[in-house]
């Protein structure tokens, strides 16, 4: 059943600085949702709350499927994933980095190998399979992050500034991957970017965050 998200009136502050003010957001449709806004406006904080990595000070974040609310347990956390701007590369091969999400779910190598090869091909990194992931360039590292998230087939994929620290050529490659994701498997992609042009190129639904508040563009 399709996973939906409803965020109502969440507030969050760090050391007295208000990061989110009464934020609300909901969706239950496939597609690419792009949240744009200037640096430091609260997009990353909002994503961390939505991906259940952090709790809001007040307000509610609910996931639902088929009209019923779902408990926020490990099972739900494994149906969504968040790709951070700095992805956190494990000091091992590209293959083992991608296998991580499957290994912790108890999936054996024989079963996971085909999935990993497919996702490597999807992000154009089959030739880097046995390379230590820490030796990848910034653009390749970002593609590795997407591959690592995609292989676990999340129903909702949060991408936090996926092209923030990479060059124009790699940005185009990543944008192409994001657009092709819709056909790869039925994941809903919710991403942030501070680049308005990029937001327009990718978004099925565009939202703007300003001073901790979200509004439709």
């Amino acid at each position: 059943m399709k996973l939906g998200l409803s965020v109502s009136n969440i507030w969050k502050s760090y050391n007295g600085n208000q990061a989110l003010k009464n934020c609300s957001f909901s969706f239950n449709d496939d597609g690419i949702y792009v949240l744009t806004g200037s640096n430091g406006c609260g997009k990353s904080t909002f994503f961390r709350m939505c991906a259940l990595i952090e709790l809001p000070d007040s307000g509610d974040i609910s996931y639902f499927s088929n009209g019923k609310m779902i408990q926020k347990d490990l099972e739900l956390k494994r149906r969504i994933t968040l790709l951070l701007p700095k992805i956190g590369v494990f000091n091992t091969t590209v293959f083992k980095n991608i296998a991580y999400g499957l290994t912790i779910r108890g999936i054996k190598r024989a079963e996971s190998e085909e999935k990993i090869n497919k996702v490597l091909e999807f992000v154009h990194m089959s030739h880097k399979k046995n390379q230590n992931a820490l030796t990848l360039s910034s653009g390749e590292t970002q593609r590795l992050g997407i591959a690592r998230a995609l292989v676990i087939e999340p129903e909702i994929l949060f991408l936090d500034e996926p092209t923030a620290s990479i060059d124009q050529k790699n940005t185009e490659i990543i944008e192409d991957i994001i657009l092709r994701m819709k056909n790869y498997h039925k994941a809903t992609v919710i991403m942030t970017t501070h680049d308005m042009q990029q937001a327009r190129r990718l978004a099925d639904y565009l939202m703007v965050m300003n001073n901790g508040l979200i509004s439709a563009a």
Partner: protein
Amino acid sequence: MNSMMEGFLKAFSLIYNLDRELLGIILLSLKVSGTALFISSVIGVPAGAVIGLKKFPGRGFIITLLNTFMGLPPVVVGLFVYLLLSRSGPLGFMGLLYTPSAMVAAQTILALPIVASLCHSAIVAVDPIIGQAAITLGATPYQKAITIIKEARYGILSSIIAGFGRVMAEVGAILIVGGNIAGYTRVMTTTIALETDKGNFELALALGVILLIISLVINSALHLIQKKGTVGANK
């Protein structure tokens, strides 16, 4: 100068001919230090991991204590273990004084803070983003901890090797609790001290050369591990 050269030549002859006494001393040294290191690692690595991963009251005090104990003077440890194991001491009934077991105990006390403290440092040096990445990919808190420990594996190995270096070169503590009994508790470092006192430089030099070779092997291993562990920074 001539007697020194003569000593070196005789030392190499002892090594080349695999002298039985020399071999016995080397094997006992490796056995005592290896056992002490094994015990230190079995206790020290999990202890270092827990201190590195968990926040609990008194954690800062334990870290300070471990760092202090890293520089424990071996003779003080020897004295402490001696008092524990001597006939009138609390563990005197075990009859362990002047046995290889007493030497293992003393070396374990010396190596444990090094292994635990360096292991803790290796774990806290892992970029916090690794733990966050594990969580975003669906790891349980236990799986997250294992992932961080795996990322620190080269540092943990370095901590074990550093512990081995410390106990192999140690002489004060094992001299006090082992007694330097020929064929029973005589190890490389205590033999070097004794034979030098006697003016019998051949065996002392032969053992000195072997100790240097062991030290070279340990440091080469450390260098290789550190090189492998620093492939590149997280992006």
